[in-house]
């Protein structure tokens, strides 16, 4: 992109590229900060570098029920916090009308949460006649391209 400046008598327009690059960098930084925040719900310290979880695109869907357990004190579904006894009703409501294969509740729990808290959530889920649980975890990166989820 070389631009030649002509003689002083003519009009010349030199487009200064530096500000455009600055604007682009600022936009990139804004996107880097905003995108993780756009993901609804609370931030959970998920287990990372796991070898064998299966991909499941349903986790990110609005129709799925995802219980987030960021610490030992609260249960969240979406952005709302619920005490343990209210969880059952919320799950029941949101599971209405789901086909049997979709009757699964996902649990996003942090690595430092006591297993007992997760068990409390699972017990509540079981009371609603749901026997499939999806424990969300981040898969270790670096393998070849990931495939579709394997059916069990």
């Amino acid at each position: 992109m070389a631009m030649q400046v002509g003689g002083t008598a003519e009009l010349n327009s030199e487009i200064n590229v530096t500000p455009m690059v600055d604007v682009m960098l600022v936009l990139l930084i804004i996107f880097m900060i905003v995108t993780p925040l756009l993901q609804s719900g609370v931030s959970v310290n998920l287990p990372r570098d796991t070898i064998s979880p299966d991909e499941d695109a349903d986790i990110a869907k609005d129709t799925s029920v995802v219980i987030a357990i960021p610490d030992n004190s609260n249960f969240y579904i979406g952005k709302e916090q619920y005490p343990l006894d209210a969880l059952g009703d919320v799950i029941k409501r949101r599971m209405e009308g789901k086909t049997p294969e979709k009757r699964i509740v996902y649990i996003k729990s942090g690595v430092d949460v006591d297993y007992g808290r997760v068990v409390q959530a699972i017990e509540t889920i079981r009371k609603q006649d749901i026997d499939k649980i999806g424990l969300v975890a981040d898969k270790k990166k670096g393998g070849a391209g990931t495939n579709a989820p394997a059916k069990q």
Partner: protein
Amino acid sequence: MAMSTGAGNQGAVPNINVTPLIDVLLVLLIIFMAITPLKPSRFEAKVPAEPKNQPQVNILPNPLTLVIAINKDTKQITLNNEPYGDVTDTDKLNQKLAETFKIRTDTGVFRENTNEIEKTVFIKSPKSVKYGDVVKVIDAAKAAGASPIGLQIDDLQD
């Protein structure tokens, strides 16, 4: 991508080399693309039904059942009450499970009334163990080929 200013040689004229800036931008973009998790993934697990109150004396334990238990104090793992490493070293467990499944596949040990090889594994952990450790054990079992994975949630130690 050079920019040259023509006349006006009086003051110092900064010539900003834009190429490296674009390189930095591309590197940042690639780093960002590599770090963002794109597709969420999960371990699917089943929970056994609630035990009823009647005494179940006539249910025989299935000899094919595999139960992985975690000791809350020592963090050691046992498979059907035999020790196989601990939560930080799950290779022994993984190996033993893989061997067991291979033997079952070779000799054709099927689940009752189905054509699937019996590969059910149950995970039993006390309530005070950290969730991260339990996930490591589930990961090791799944990597060895366990399917389905059952979480025992009744009668757990504290």
